[in-house]
């Protein structure tokens, strides 16, 4: 049997959402509500510190949605995901600073570099079994960080600072915290939506087939290697563009921002939130990035708490707090005009 089959016979939630809370959380409107809340948040508190934290949280959400494609949909345990963000941030930072361009014009180069990074990291690793894949991706994460630390073009240990803002049009300076926050929220919302839509498409299903049983997927004509590589590339693009936002937010990038701890935190957001369930992942990302700020007294022990939480969740509830609900309404998506077929049709 495929190594990803769960033979523990854990009970699986099936059927339509029952409680009011479940229905609310599963409804289409949740995304709109969340976006609205994000837009209104600055009216509650708009101190520079608060905006800083919220913008960072939004960027973290973007990273988590990207890693969700790799780990959640496709089941590839990438422990070095932060490397993609590093590639994006450094590419954007170096180009924009050298040519004195607003960051937004570095996006084509960032896309090229992150796709390349995805291919370079993916090519050797995707043929490996999952344990090896995990450690090798971790190795790549470290290689990226050490390389950034050692090269002069990346500014060595101090990194690159004084990076121009995203954009300046007329009187609108995106570098201003409030404006940057809204731009970030909108961009992140767009990418979260895009990744959710990808998950519910032919490609998203292919990712899941590969995750559940590679051999059976191959037997159905799915090129598993190509599908895995696509997951990596999408994850890389999400990470890289998150890096651009990161560079815009901090105006500086340094190797310290890309240590393994960061990869692990993004992974925790995906795992605790419920792998494969984009909504859960968003919430997981918000919890992991915001909670330490809200509970400052416990800050020094927060990583210990996260580590223990990870073990506890995996042992008792491995599908995460909000797992992908393996359920769909049966006759929901037929186009108007197609004949409605009764449920119990006999031949």
């Amino acid at each position, binding site marked *: 049997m495929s190594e990803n089959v769960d033979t523990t016979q854990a009970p699986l939630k099936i059927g339509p959402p029952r409680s009011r809370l479940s229905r609310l959380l599963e409804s289409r409107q949740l995304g709109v509500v969340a976006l609205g809340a994000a837009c209104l948040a600055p009216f509650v508190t708009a101190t520079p510190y608060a905006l800083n934290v919220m913008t960072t949280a939004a960027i973290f959400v973007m990273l988590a949605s990207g890693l969700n494609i790799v780990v959640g949909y496709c089941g590839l345990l990438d422990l070095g995901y932060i490397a993609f963000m590093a590639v994006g941030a450094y590419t954007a930072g170096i180009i924009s600073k050298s040519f004195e361009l607003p960051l937004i014009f570095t996006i084509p180069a960032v896309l090229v570099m992150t796709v390349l990074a995805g291919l370079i990291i993916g090519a050797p690793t995707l043929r490996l079994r999952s344990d090896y894949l995990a450690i090798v991706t971790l190795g790549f994460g470290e290689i990226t960080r050490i390389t950034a630390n050692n090269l002069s073009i990346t500014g060595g240990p101090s990194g690159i600072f004084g990076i121009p803002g995203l954009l300046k049009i007329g009187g609108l300076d995106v570098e201003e915290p409030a404006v940057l926050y809204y731009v970030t929220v909108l961009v992140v919302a767009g990418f979260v939506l895009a990744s959710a839509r990808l998950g519910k498409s032919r490609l998203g299903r292919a990712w899941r087939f590969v995750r559940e049983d590679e051999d*059976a997927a*191959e037997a159905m004509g799915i090129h598993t290697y190509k599908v895995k590589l696509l997951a990596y590339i999408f994850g890389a693009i999400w990470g890289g563009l998150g890096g651009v936002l990161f560079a815009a937010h901090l105006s500086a990038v340094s190797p310290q921002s890309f240590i393994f701890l960061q990869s692990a935190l993004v992974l925790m957001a995906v795992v605790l939130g419920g792998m494969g369930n984009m909504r859960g992942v968003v919430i997981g990302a918000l919890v992991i990035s915001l909670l330490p700020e809200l509970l400052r007294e416990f800050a020094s022990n927060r990583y210990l708490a996260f580590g223990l939480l990870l073990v506890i969740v995996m042992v008792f509830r491995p599908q995460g707090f909000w797992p992908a609900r393996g359920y769909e309404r049966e006759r929901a998506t037929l*186009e108007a005009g197609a004949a409605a077929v009764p449920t119990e049709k006999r031949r």
Partner: protein
Amino acid sequence: MSAVLEVKDLQIAFGGVKAVDGLSFSAHEREIIAVIGPNGAGKTSAFNCITGFYRPTSGSVRIKGVDTTGKRPADIAAAGVTRTFQNLRLFPDLTVLDNVRAGMHLYGGQNWADAIFHTPRFKRSEAMYTEEAHHWLDFVGFEGARGVPVRNLSYGQQKRVEIARALARKAELLLLDEPAAGLNYSEKQQLLVLCRRIRDLGTSIVLIEHDMVLVMELFERIIVMDFGREIAAGTPAEVEADPAVIEAYLGKDDTAVLGNGDA
């Protein structure tokens, strides 16, 4: 009739053991062939060679005239083969419908851009997926909830889903690996009826089966394997009388073992 499947001198060895040792046979359009033989005869190994999960050490496999020897499983599937597995390999946490949709992957008609932007092409494609999935589930006589994960279903129902998934590939050749295992007699009869309906759609079937009674009763053409090669082939009557077949299943006559000449 042209040959949908042509296997010539197929061989594969694991370490020192020759699992398949010079197997040759053909399947033509609208044929149903049963491959039988004792345990370890090499039946599943042959299937795996044909579908690309094993790489044969020598010999050739042609599907619809195209040489597919040694190609990867996904390419062979695209060439016109589809299969089920001996130990039922569905996607356990995915819904019944999604499992069947897996079979349709190759003619999906949508790419990632369609998905992200929900283009009309995407919506048409998704509607097609759903409608066809239902169609195949109806065809195999699947009863029960279709929007739930397959791991919650009964064994018999899961087998039907696996066949529906294989059929959704719309391939010319269907390989069924012990489809009747674990089924009771009436379920086996239903399976046979289903096979005939599949054949009527234009798909050839090669299946592995253990139940001798069923096989002798219901199949038109039988191939018997032992030690990795064909030892007999023909109609049930021919095969039943073949001394090699009797020997494979029941062993040689005791007197022969004691040195009184060959049986």
